[in-house]
């Protein structure tokens, strides 16, 4: 194990919040999903797609995961730990890459528990079903990509509180502006480029023709956002004084 990975791994697990946040992501995702599935009579919510209804909890899950991601680097800037880290491990892009890898290593298992738990807590659409399996796998990847996006933003912004505001704004800006638009072309345009609205199309198992963007293409949009944010973060980290 490289010293970069080992350093990030021990930092992540010795901060008291990590385990709580991961547990919160699982409980919040599955809990809101179960509530939504119970509150919506069949066909009422999410275009009558029970899989999407069960995955409503991702709204909470993505927030918690984003907070965890922001804290992995923002917490270091808040306490001044960052200077120690960069003194000990001078290859800055490798530090960011190690943080991303460690983050992925904890977010993926948590998401892999949260998503099936949401689907089981709901009406229980069978995961052997092709589209449902796609939604499940895609939602796990979606949570991972949101975490990486948040990590990139936090590296660029540094202040953890401001970074959380930026990430949430980025996620919700597009659907809210789209919802307020009367022009349908503009709505679809915004929903295609927004990380959340495009990425959540992976949850759909019905009415694929009406989606603003296809499921995998939508996940690709989030991947682009995450890659862009990480690149921006890496450049900022490289260029700036810590």
């Amino acid at each position: 194990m490289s010293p970069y990975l080992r350093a990030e791994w021990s930092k992540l697990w010795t901060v008291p919040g990590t385990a709580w946040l991961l547990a919160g992501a699982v409980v919040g995702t599955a809990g809101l999903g179960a509530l939504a599935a119970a509150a919506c009579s069949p066909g009422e919510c999410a275009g009558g797609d029970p899989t999407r209804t069960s995955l409503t909890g991702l709204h909470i899950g993505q927030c918690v995961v984003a907070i965890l991601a922001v804290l992995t680097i923002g917490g270091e800037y808040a306490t001044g730990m960052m200077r120690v880290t960069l003194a000990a491990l001078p290859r800055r892009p490798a530090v960011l890459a190690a943080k991303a890898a460690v983050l992925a290593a904890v977010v993926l298992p948590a998401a892999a528990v949260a998503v099936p738990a949401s689907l089981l807590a709901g009406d229980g659409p069978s995961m052997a079903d092709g589209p449902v399996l796609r939604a499940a796998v895609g939602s796990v990847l979606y949570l991972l990509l949101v975490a990486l996006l948040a990590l990139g933003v936090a590296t660029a912004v540094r202040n953890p509180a401001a970074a959380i505001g930026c990430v949430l704004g980025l996620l919700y800006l597009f659907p809210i502006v789209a919802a307020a638009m009367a022009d349908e072309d503009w709505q679809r345009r915004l929903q295609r480029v927004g990380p959340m609205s495009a990425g959540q199309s992976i949850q759909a198992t019905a009415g694929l023709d009406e989606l603003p963007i296809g499921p995998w293409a939508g996940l690709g949009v989030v991947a682009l956002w995450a890659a862009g944010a990480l690149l921006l973060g890496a450049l900022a980290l490289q260029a700036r004084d810590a």
Partner: protein
Amino acid sequence: MKGFWTAVRAEWTKFRTVRGWVVATAAAAVAMVGLGLAPGMSGSCGKRGPGSECELPVGPNGDEVTDVFTFAHRPLTGDGSVTARVASMTGQLEGSGRAVLAPWAKAGLVVKDGTRPGSSYAAVMLTGAHGVRMQYDYTHDRAGSSGGGPRWLRLTRAGDTITGAESVDGAQWTDVGSARLRDLPSTVEIGLFATSPQYAEMVSMSIGSMGASTEPSQVTAVFDGVAPGGDWTGTVVGERGRPIGGYTRDGDRHTLIGTGDIAPATAGAAGLGTTITQTLVGTFAALIVMVVVGTLVATGEYRRGLIRTTLAAIPRRGRVLAAKALVVAAVTFVTGVLSAAVLVTLGQRVLRANGVYVHAVGTATELRVIAGTGALLAVAAVLALALGTLLRRGTTAVTAAVATIVLPYMLVLAALPVDAGRWVLRVTPAAAFALQQSAKQYDQVDNLYIPQEGYFPLAPWAGFGVLAAWTAVALAAAAWLLRRRDA
């Protein structure tokens, strides 16, 4: 009191010397104005040459109204009455051709000051799903019996009083209600009418947003037993383009096909155009920023240990908190009011220039929306400040503040089913967005009265009260803990 102003000055100095907070406040205003003025909406009003301007008739009370219906009429001078039986009503959606009778499809009798749209009227009618109604001058609505058709109706004029009555068999009559129309001339038009409004349905569009689907509907109403006899003139009132529907007669069987409504005009899915609330869509972006700033004003001092200096200089801790709250509230209020004022005045023009019809609102409503936007942002920022004081750690506090203040509103707009969303907008701090409502909601007009269209479940100041109550509780808890805890 002098000590308090010293504390306020200290806090103001701290605020304006932190570059990030000043930049963030400016960014909040820019984001809000930018989102509101972005050309995301366009319409066809006035875009297809002269005559395509969207203008709504104005009713006797000065409200904008819809006044489109099929009318079989004749003049009546002095007192008199008309009686008829609505034998059947059938509906159809014009787009999809589905056989649906709109709940507020109307067929009945009307007495009206001429056939000019927007003129004074009184009518008794059978509706698609709301029984017999007596309505007059667009905004007034009184329910009769709740049964369906066929039903006998009678409308009587005596002086300036119009009385509507209904009957199941044509022998036993019950009054539905009466109206006094003061400006009615001695000669009016009286007769049969039929009309059917836009049919709106809630659809969940693509991922993460709810929306509305609407299409015009039409009603085919058959009348018989019409008294007095004689000839009636068929007119489609208020239709400027292609007239839809019309009047045909076969002996005592009068058939009216109508599309439109006689009702106050509403904005949104089933109405025409939008309201000034639309221009304030960027408020939530400013809300996120100001909530973060409000939290940091409290937690920033703990991060650097400045709080110990502050409390040494001003030992009355409640006073420090009050001064911080005042500074945050004042800065946010001014930012919010300025942005909202720009948006409400300029945003309307941009929308109109894009061919979108914007409903006129009174100056009082406009002022309430502008001041309300500032107040909503200011009190939310103070709530965030209180949460920051309670929790002390920046990340935890920002998360808590965003989760209680911003997230509920986002979930309502983007994820929750309509009924759950209404509850969220009654109990969470997001209720204060009701201050931005500028459209009126009418029970007798079918529309989707949903937050996305600018309709909120609480009255404006009641919604603000919910946010204020949250803030008061949080601020009291913060003051108590600040006094009790060691810094």
